[in-house]
């Protein structure tokens, strides 16, 4: 996938550790105060924003830092959701064990995807991950004995401690903060720098002696792990799973949030998730033609703000400064 030239260069992020930490702390504290001012329903939405933010971020690891956009992450996300619901509702496992198994399953699926996909790039990577996601969807739809088929599965997945809207929100916030930090460390690690090298020029990295497929494989699997965390949280959020959770639309939504937030900005994912979820909610309250509005927004973002909301803001700010 060709990278957008406007995407912020990594060096912009580097060297800001002190300030970044301060900003991060302020953001997390502000976010943890949200339930005090929001209604229950809005807290639910904010929880959803965090969960989908993690998904979008996991996609950004690949898209922004390895130059490969996946349309299969919704399926990886959904595998975790399925496994968590299955383990608690059908197998009767405790929530923590189910959660761990869900993330593990998603990581395993991601590893299989990665094995097949690392040799491709560009549009072919997009198509292959899309096709792999379709397989997962098909299995969830047809393997009725286990997945409940079209009807999906229900259960009381959420641990008793987190039953309240606020408690669950804070738990998800803490989780989101931890995985965000982990992802941030990951893309800034030497390994992450190698991924960026591959993004910018695969042939150069290869001639430098790097094992490109192996790096991509690991990058994909790690990204799948984080998508799995998001999916497992989603299981606890909804207490329910059905094939629409693993459908292509889920992947597309994740990618769209990632783009709306800004490719390669990592934390922009939360802004993107907030923007898309808010849009869906506000628009659907005023018109039943929300799909049309969403489609138009899609098109407009691609044409006018391909660098995403955070990217756009950053550009505008830097222009002012100059």
């Amino acid at each position: 996938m060709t990278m957008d030239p406007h995407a912020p260069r990594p060096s912009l992020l580097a060297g800001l550790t002190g300030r970044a930490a301060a900003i991060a702390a302020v953001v997390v504290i502000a976010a943890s105060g949200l339930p005090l001012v929001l209604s229950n329903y809005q807290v639910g939405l904010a929880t959803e924003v965090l969960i989908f933010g993690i998904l979008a971020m996991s996609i950004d690891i690949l898209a922004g830092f390895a130059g490969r956009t996946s349309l299969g992450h919704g399926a990886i996300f959904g595998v975790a959701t399925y496994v968590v619901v299955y383990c608690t509702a059908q197998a009767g496992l405790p929530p923590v064990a189910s959660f761990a198994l869900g993330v593990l399953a998603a990581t395993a699926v991601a590893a299989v995807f990665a094995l097949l996909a690392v040799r491709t790039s560009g549009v072919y990577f997009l198509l292959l991950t899309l096709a792999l996601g379709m397989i997962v969807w098909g299995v969830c739809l047809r393997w009725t004995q286990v997945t409940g088929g079209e009807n999906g599965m229900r259960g009381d997945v959420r641990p008793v401690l987190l039953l309240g809207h606020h408690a669950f929100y804070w738990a998800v916030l803490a989780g989101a903060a931890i995985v965000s930090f982990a992802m941030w460390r990951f893309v800034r690690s030497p390994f992450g720098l190698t991924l960026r090298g591959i993004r910018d020029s695969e042939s150069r990295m290869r001639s430098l002696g790097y094992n490109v497929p192996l790096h991509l494989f690991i990058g994909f699997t790690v990204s799948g792990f984080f998508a799995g965390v998001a999916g497992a949280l989603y299981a606890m959020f909804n207490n329910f799973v059905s094939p629409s959770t693993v459908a292509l639309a889920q992947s597309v939504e994740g990618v769209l949030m990632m783009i709306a937030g800004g490719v390669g900005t990592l934390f922009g994912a939360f802004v993107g998730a907030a923007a898309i979820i808010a849009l869906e909610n506000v628009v659907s309250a005023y018109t039943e033609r929300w799909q049309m509005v969403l489609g138009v927004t899609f098109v407009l973002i691609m044409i006018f703000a391909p660098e995403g909301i955070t990217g756009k803001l950053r550009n505008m700010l830097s222009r002012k400064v100059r």
Partner: protein
Amino acid sequence: MDRRQFLKTTTAAVAAAGLGAAPWRSAMAQAGPIKIGLLAPLTGVVASGGKEMVEGVQFYLDQVKNEMGGRKVELTIEDDASNPDTALQKARRLVEQGNCHMLIGDLLANTGLAVANYVKGTGTPYFIPIIAADDLTQRARIKNVIRVAGYTASAFTHPFGDWALKQGYKRIATISQDYTFGHEQCGGLAQVFTEGGGEIVQQFWHPLNTADFSPYLGQLAELKVDAIFAMETGADSTRFIQQYASFGLKAKTPLLMAMNGTDQSVIRTIGEEAEGIISAAHFAEGSDKAVTAKFTKDYEAKYGKIPSLYGFSMYSGMMWIDAALKKMGGKVEDRDLFIDTVLKTELDGSPLGKAVKFDAYGNPVYDVTIRKVVKRADGKYWNVPTQTYPEVGQFWKYDPETYLKQPAYSRTFQGIKKA
């Protein structure tokens, strides 16, 4: 667009009522309107059905001048997008943001089950005139999920199996969409039919939205059965009926269908291919009973189409809730009382032309009619009743306790008795 307009007029009506409130009403006024949240798929695969659900509700509210149990009604309509995740989100919005006193609606089983699981936690009364999953009134009842004017999927195919035996059919094959609604309807027929000595030769399960039925039709044609039972909904049904005719099976093997297969929402856009298909249901739009004829005529005059099961069920469901609200003076805030009252209330004056009440498990007991698709004088097709099984409950002729000991119908358990 309709919805916005409707909301506006509703709100205007509420405002007007509030402003010009007669003094005797002031006690009521402070209680405010009854807030009803309607969930319907206005986009997605079953969007046309969702639209008719909304029409059914509005048709009723128009007739009662937007007043139920002596209080104004504030209706909020949300699109569940034929998607359970969306349904869940919208249900949250209606309950937590909109403070709705009750929810009603959803069409697809997966959306309804998702919402049912959610209201289990909140205690909000949730009415399901369309969601037919057996276990909601059998093995997995939720107190506040109530099947007003709804039905249990297998309840109508039990007598249908009996009817098939009486036609002298010995061998039947079934084809069905592969999800609970299909498993349950096929299971009902298969159990009664095989217990009476019939044979289910083969059962085909295909995914929803099967583009091309020809591979299945080819296999069905080779089976040489006395009749074929098909359980299809929406676009699948349209396609199935048409391909069944175009492959020449219509002339050879009688087609029996689940009631949703020959619903108006399906046969309205197809023609003679649908003629002669038999189904079993509580409602037949072509019935010559006076109330049914009037309902059909008025509905047609208003919306330009013969009412479907969706429109009928939502209309009757609202009527049932209204009857309960009238009984208890509109005090919808007392949830326990409300739920108990609904369960004890009879549905009278509905287009069915006969009073209906709940059984001990919260499932309505109906007269089930065997219906046949025939051409009306004006060239449109509709379902006309040919025979009636009176007072059919969800357990057919079985003892409820024994029946509940057998597993729920699924792809692996169809209640088939081996000869």
